[in-house]
């Protein structure tokens, strides 16, 4: 689990995911949660969106966009529960829960990008 040797790995993933989330996620949510559903822009059709998503660059982009921010979430949410909500007795459950979500999400993202 987390010790002096592994902590830098978890922290690097947290940091890299934080950068990706900060730079790329707001516009992604803005487009597909507000601009398209509320009709602020002409919604791209199914076929053109599928073609766009199918390109190797987009698939790589979407994979990184999903995977790294989940590791950012795992680290940060773990410490939110630990420091913020003082949940210290469930430390291991929280650890495996948070990183379980990150790993499952990464595997799901990899699978979706392969079959896209």
């Amino acid at each position, binding site marked *: 689990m987390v010790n002096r040797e592994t902590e830098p790995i978890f922290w690097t993933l947290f940091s890299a995911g934080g950068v990706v989330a900060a730079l790329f996620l707001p516009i992604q949510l803005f487009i597909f949660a507000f601009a398209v559903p*509320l009709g602020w822009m002409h919604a791209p059709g199914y076929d053109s969106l599928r073609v766009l998503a199918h390109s190797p660059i987009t698939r790589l982009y979407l994979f990184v966009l*999903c995977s790294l921010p989940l590791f950012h979430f795992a680290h940060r949410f773990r410490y939110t529960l630990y420091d913020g909500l003082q949940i210290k007795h469930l430390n291991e459950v929280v650890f495996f829960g948070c990183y379980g979500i990150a790993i499952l999400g990464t595997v799901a993202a990899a699978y979706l990008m392969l079959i896209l």
Partner: protein
Amino acid sequence: MSSHGHAATPAPTSSAQSHAPSSAYTEFHPRWYRPKISTYWWLGKWAYVKFILRELSSVAVAWTVALILAQVWSLIRSPKAYSQFARVMSSPWMIALNVVAFAFLLLHSITWFNLAPKAMAVRVGGKRLPAVLISGPQYLAWIVISAIVLAIVISRG
């Protein structure tokens, strides 16, 4: 008799040499002073509330990723599945939920960019670079990236 300090020395050295406690020695475990901290300790001060809100932004990050995965999954399945996804996204409760998520994403971005100058002290010519020169380019990158992503999606419209 000659020196009374000399006679006292063997005792500490012998106990320091043998690390295993003797039979007469009972290990004393000190009781740490750890006051119980309330779950709601952060409610008292605005700075603490901001800290907790910033940390909770990670939930919005995970939520947004989940939406992206759901969108791609529906895109893979069929046009019907995708229109169903689009319908869910335009429901009022979903819009309301995403307004909250978007606010947290913005909080994450802004606090993240503002934190960078504090996390890394870049020195040029022996002087520390002003914070604006570190966080400024990140804000610029944020705007450029957002414009590019928006332009790409609009071009498909």
